């Protein structure tokens, strides 16, 4: 049976893992490959690197980090942030990533999703959707708007429609982040997850707001997520990968049993 994945997310800026509430109050959390190896050893099912380096000259640093990580952590690696072209995606995959996550660039040019999927296969193309809740009440029902550039820029796109469209374009997986919940530790937006996972056949990764094991369980059981992603609660060691997976298993969810190397 397919396991539900637990995925630590590492925000990388200028070669270091950082964590803040989306681009503000960043604090240094360590060397990316080192942290990646630690998570792999603790039983992480996959890793996501999100490159939030603003300057384009930081790209070489990122590729070096991806390659050093691929040599140390033998679990899948997804890299997001700053990929705008097919050759850029090729470089990231060549460095050792398995998947590339497209966000702002996909919204700006949806054909990028199709071109990347045609070249590398849809399984290598993750479309990341940052969604913000809209809607004020009975006359203004709940909906979600796609926002880009780290949540700062509204697009007018409906997140549920964009999710369906992204899959039609060639996305093999969706990384769905609630910008309202991100960094707040108030739980995933389960309703958003449920609306999206009910509309697409590709796996959905839940992101934004995880505080503890109960949130991971809710995202999978009630939100229909295939995988759950979190950053700060793992970096700060508020919860370990193992304890989250143990809680998920106790709730009856299939998780990968992990035996560390002898």
């Amino acid at each position, binding site marked *: 049976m397919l396991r539900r994945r637990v995925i630590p997310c590492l925000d990388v800026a200028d070669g270091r893992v950082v964590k803040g509430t989306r681009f503000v109050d960043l604090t240094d959390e360590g060397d990316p490959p080192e942290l990646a190896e630690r998570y792999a050893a603790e039983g992480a099912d996959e890793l996501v690197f999100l490159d939030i380096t603003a300057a384009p000259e930081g790209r070489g640093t990122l590729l070096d980090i991806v390659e050093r990580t691929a040599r140390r952590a033998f679990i*899948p690696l997804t890299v997001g942030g700053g990929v705008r072209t097919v050759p850029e995606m090729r470089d990231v995959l060549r460095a050792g990533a*398995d998947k590339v996550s497209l966000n702002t660039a996909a919204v700006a040019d949806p054909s990028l999703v199709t071109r990347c999927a045609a070249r590398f296969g849809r399984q290598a193309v993750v479309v990341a959707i940052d969604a913000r809740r809209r809607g004020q009440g009975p006359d203004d029902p709940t909906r979600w708007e796609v926002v880009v550039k780290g949540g700062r820029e509204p697009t007018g796109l409906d997140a549920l429609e964009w999710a369906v469209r992204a899959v039609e374009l060639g996305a093999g997986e969706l990384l769905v982040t609630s910008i309202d919940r991100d960094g707040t530790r108030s739980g995933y937006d389960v309703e958003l997850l449920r609306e999206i996972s009910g509309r697409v056949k*590709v796996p959905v990764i839940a992101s934004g707001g995880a505080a503890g094991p109960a949130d991971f369980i809710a995202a999978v059981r009630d939100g229909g997520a295939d995988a759950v992603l979190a950053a700060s609660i793992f970096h700060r060691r508020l919860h370990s990968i193992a304890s989250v997976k143990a809680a998920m298993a106790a709730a009856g969810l299939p998780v990968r049993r992990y035996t560390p*190397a002898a």
Partner: protein
Amino acid sequence: MTAPRVDGPDGDRARRIVAAVVDYGAGNIVSIGQGLTAAGADVRLARDPDDLRGADLLVVPGVGAAAPAMARLARRGLVEPIRGWIAADRPYLGICLGLQLLFETSDEDGAETFGVLRGRVRRLEDAPTLPHIGWNQVVRRASHPAFDGIDDGADFYFVHSYVGVPEGADAGAVVADTTHGGRFPAAIARRSLLGVQFHPERSSTDGLRLLDNVVAGVARAGAAPAAIG
């Protein structure tokens, strides 16, 4: 987890094998190379037919669709050398697309592939999610040394939508299978050929153990005639 290797009297690593990893712009060659190196192999990236010379093990990785992969192999002049390698019963490890290419054709794009194994590559049936991405259990149907020391039902990492299903004379070549909706072959072996639908290079310690077993098997096979001579 690398087995100790004994150096020969002249300082050569007597049993160290050369693994040629086909580099045709598909698949995670960084991790595969590192996994094989950890298993004690000397890894060489194979970009043209000359790179296969002197190799002991041929590894064909890859993800994605069959037709562009075959086209890239053809551009590098690698199609016939790979076919010849397999026909000569030399050790071959196919990973994901590297397994699927061994079949006769792919439903995904109608590509004509190596045709080394009877059968075709089909879309996963009744899959609740597609692509099939994530860790899933690999259940043994037959014993094979590549799985030595690995628990039956151990989790490996998959990322694919299509799967090769052997037929006719090769129907019995399934070593292990996995269930995602329907059941499908996860590992296929015939003589010196092994193909896995999952990614050992992304499957943590059990994946590395599998690569280690493959390398050790080739090293043993290569060492035997030398010992007799």
